[in-house]
């Protein structure tokens, strides 16, 4: 049985910040990452981040990952386990981890779950043809492994992921035939949309995929228009050839481990699906179990980093660790979150969080 004070599950933006801030207060941290490297989604994000200076605005995600990784490597209080997947959290507080051919057991005092999210699928005929992939998967192939999955791409979804991955595909030399968006408006940041549009890529709002076609591989899609009630408009079908159909239709929190641990879960569509009920310290209903990042509700990576900061500090604090001005630091993280969620683009997120957060100290406003 291995001992650690705080076990963090997931080495993405939330997990990295949680580790840095928990160790910053003096706690012994073990960070578990399934991949052979730390950084999570940051490692493939080549675009500059939004937000403010505190959330590395203007810095590219991939460079943020390097910066945080370096801080972790230099901190003797943080132990990192790569290629390691958590298998379960048990009622006696034991966490089992499978690393390569080893099976490890941990007995941590606190757990922070920062497992992130997975890509949603879209149901339509022939959606199992090879060449139909998630946008995140395409981004991994392209930006981590240097493999361009196709030459002529149709993207489904004009949220930030669909827009950003389309842009990166253009940078890699692929042609984007069109970006289809079922909603009458573009969901992602309009500055992302504008920079793709001025490369000549049509963004077809109120359009969706009717079906894909192809013999052994996707050869194209039938696109149709949707009315204001999202019902297909008959007679608007159009064939569009492609060798990759890329789906960017949203993310869902990767929360299986929270169900298994017995956290009270709630269905909050605005946050991407089932999320754990938490307090203002991101503590769930299971004693000593915190959450941070997309698993707590799908948002931008900037918010994930701030949640990591907050959960890391809160978990260490609950073990008796402290630093000068800790309360202010936690409040300032909460204000950063409130700011990131303040604009029109944060309306849904705020609504979702209001329904899943059980405040114990009254509402924080910035």
């Amino acid at each position, binding site marked *: 049985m291995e001992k650690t004070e705080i076990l963090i599950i997931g080495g993405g933006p939330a997990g990295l910040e949680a580790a840095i801030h928990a160790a910053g207060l003096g706690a012994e941290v073990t960070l578990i990452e399934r991949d052979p490297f730390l950084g999570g989604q940051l490692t493939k994000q080549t*675009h*500059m*981040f*939004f*937000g*403010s*200076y505190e959330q590395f*605005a*203007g810095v*590219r995600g991939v460079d943020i990952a390097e910066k945080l990784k370096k801080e972790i490597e230099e901190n003797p209080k943080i132990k990192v386990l790569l290629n390691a997947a958590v298998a379960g959290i048990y009622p006696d507080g034991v966490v089992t981890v499978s690393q390569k051919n080893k099976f490890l057991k941990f007995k941590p005092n606190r757990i922070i779950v920062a497992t992130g999210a997975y890509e949603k699928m879209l149901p339509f005929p022939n959606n199992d043809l090879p060449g139909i992939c998630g946008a995140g998967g395409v981004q991994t192939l392209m930006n981590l492994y240097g493999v361009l999955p196709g030459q002529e791409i149709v993207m489904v979804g*004009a949220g930030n992921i669909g827009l950003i991955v389309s842009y990166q595909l*253009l*940078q890699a030399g692929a042609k984007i035939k069109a970006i289809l968006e079922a909603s*009458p*408006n*573009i969901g992602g*940041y*309009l*500055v*992302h*949309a*504008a*920079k*793709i*549009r*001025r*490369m*000549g*890529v049509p*963004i077809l*709002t*109120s359009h969706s995929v009717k079906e894909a076609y192809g013999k052994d591989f996707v050869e194209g899609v039938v696109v149709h228009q949707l009315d204001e009630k999202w019902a297909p408009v008959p007679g608007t079908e159009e064939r569009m050839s492609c060798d990759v159909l890329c789906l960017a239709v949203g993310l869902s929190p990767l929360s299986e481990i929270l169900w298994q641990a017995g956290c009270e879960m709630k269905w909050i569509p605005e946050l991407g699906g089932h999320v754990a009920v938490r307090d203002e310290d991101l503590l769930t209903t299971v004693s000593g179990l915190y959450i941070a990042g997309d698993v707590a509700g799908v948002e931008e990576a*900037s918010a994930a980093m701030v949640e990591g900061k907050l959960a890391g500090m809160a978990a260490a604090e609950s073990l008796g660790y402290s630093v000068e001005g800790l309360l202010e630091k936690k409040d300032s993280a909460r204000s950063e979150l409130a*700011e*990131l*969620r*303040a*604009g*029109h*683009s*944060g309306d849904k997120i705020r609504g979702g969080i209001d329904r899943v957060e059980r405040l114990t100290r009254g509402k924080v406003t910035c």
Partner: protein
Amino acid sequence: MLANSGYAEIEELSRVIPSKERLAKGAVAIAECLQSIPCNPCNSACKRGAFLAFKDINDLPTVDVERCNGCGLCVSACPGLAIFVVDESFNETEALIKLPYEFLPLPIEGKDVPALDRKGEIVGTARVVKVQNTKTMDRTPVIWIAVPKAMSMIVRNIRP
């Protein structure tokens, strides 16, 4: 409309386009940032304080056109690649546009390239005046192009 097509119509841009008089005076930044999102690097990038202070990080940027000298530092600093510099005093017939460009190969100085509008449609020819790609720009090169004056508010991209 920007919100459903990805390109802003000229009417949507009226808030951010400087007056004719100011444009005639020389280079000035135009922040085509029309949606409230949490983002403020333009404000910190400007050494002259020409981006007015943000009360809230979700505020839209406002350029103080009297303080702005069109240096272009903000062009590569904007995470949304939404800032352009336009100089209508460039010469008798042409305006200079500085635009962010993150594609390879980079255009070649002195060459003519197709000039694209906000829809990505070819609307004429631009002459590449300068290609700036310094370390500070952090892999967002800024391309200076000359276009006929009448195209200064239409051209926003190039194809090398």
